[in-house]
């Protein structure tokens, strides 16, 4: 892909993000931060590529550390979001 195509994807995604995030209800802003935190760990893709390739040992070890750090975030971020969202209920108890 050439740079302009990638840039187009990026710019369009910024607009999508803008509209989608505005539609998030303020009551869910904390779960929003937790879940965006988890998904920004998609950086693990880069870490996996670094960890997978032999050749430069330092790069591989750095990659493995990055894989571990991103994994903390992926599992932690989704789990804590799940835990918070499970608490949001409509009135289930009689006053």
């Amino acid at each position, binding site marked *: 892909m050439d740079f302009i195509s990638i840039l187009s994807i990026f710019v369009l995604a910024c607009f999508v993000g803008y509209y989608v995030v505005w539609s998030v209800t303020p009551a869910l802003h904390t779960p929003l931060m937790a879940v965006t935190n988890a998904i920004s760990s998609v950086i693990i893709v880069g870490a996996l590529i670094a960890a997978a390739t032999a050749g430069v040992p330092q790069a591989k070890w750095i990659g493995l550390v990055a894989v571990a750090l991103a*994994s903390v975030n992926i599992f932690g971020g989704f789990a804590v979001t799940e835990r918070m969202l499970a608490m949001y209920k409509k009135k289930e108890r009689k006053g």
Partner: protein
Amino acid sequence: MHEVADVPVWVPLAYLIAGVCFILALRGLSSPESSRRGNRFGMIGMAIAVVTTLVTHEIGSLVEILIAIAIGGAIGFIIARRIAMTAMPQLVAAFHSLVGMAAVLVGAAAFLNPDAFGILGPDGEILDVSRVEMGLGVAIGAITFSGSVIAFLKLNGNMSGKPIILPLRHVINLGTLAVILGLIGYFTTDQSAWVFWTVTALSFLIGFLLIIPIGGADMPVVVSMLNSYSGWAAAAMGFTLQNTAMIITGALVGSSGAILSYIMCRAMNRSFISVISGGFGGETAIAGPAGASDRPWKRGSAEDAAFLMKQAEQVIIVPGYGMAVAQAQHALREMADMLKEEGVTVKYAIHPVAGRMPGHMNVLLAEASVPYDEVFELEDINSEFARSDVAFVIGANDVTNPSAKTDKSSPIYGMPVLDVEKAKTVLFVKRSMGGAGYAGVENELFFRDNTMMLLADAKKMVEDIVKSLG
């Protein structure tokens, strides 16, 4: 030799699907009903991205990778299960720091082994455009890391929430930023290791310098700003890898943090520039006008409060960070249940900057099983105070201060506040008369005729009220 030139067509498609899943994950948060489905979409997207990467690369070290994922995953999972909901802001800050560090490490790995990332030009050097992307990615990642570490230490109480103001800090910060950008530019002409590592080191330093002058009251803005940075770091790495999942995610996360920062700034009537240039809101109160605290005020007891609320038709509860610190949310819900049994209408009013991150109060109330349709935002409930018998303010100071509307000399002048003083009676739960809120201003409300101060630990006071109601 690498796959970038000859990837099968399904690979970019899979990454695109992962990106779409992430969009759906955020989209789901538009209402509590669809939010859990949204979170599942996020997990599916992440699984697709990871599996696609693993199956399309020659994995020489699959076992090590699986061990790294297992160790990291187990740590993350255990932390997520154990963390107290009141500690959510510092947890999010800590998680941001990890994304930042991961971005730095990925950038470093790409620099050390560019061939693996498919960014080598025909001349055996890293492509110019990739050098800029890597430089920016590493810089943003490093700023996110050190900034988040400071935010974590401040939120967790390991470091004072007081702003640390260095002389000439704007000159130092702008100068350092200029040097970083200059070096990234120079990196395109000279691919030396020293340039790369200097950019990294200076970026760690600037992240630290940018956050130390910011005071506790501005932490919600800082946390969402760092959220934004972690997104841009991921996007920059996505450019390097030409990976659509990373670019879409980075843009989503980047916009998300930017929008939340904007909402927080608007809720405090402060400009983003004045927040990031720092200094507002330490934990030490600036003494109010001399003798102000000698003014008469009324003290009430738990019994008085119970009596007043029992007689009321409508009570609006205003929770703030003080409630979170005292962990009073469960007792509060119990109190509300008892009032509802007496036929009282109970509503909750939440100011957008209550707590230490956007929406933090909502989570704490949800934890105590408060139904979310009893919880209202400032603009939806402000007109209701005039029709209410009691406003029950618990640990919320600055966001209820009427002088924000009238006193031009007040540091919080112009900030939208909850109109609690319009209720017939204001019950104000506070530990003691000493000590002002985070903004360091005394609350005019304490001395109003219709205000009754309930001086005690928030949780203890609410429990006493519950006893009196029973």
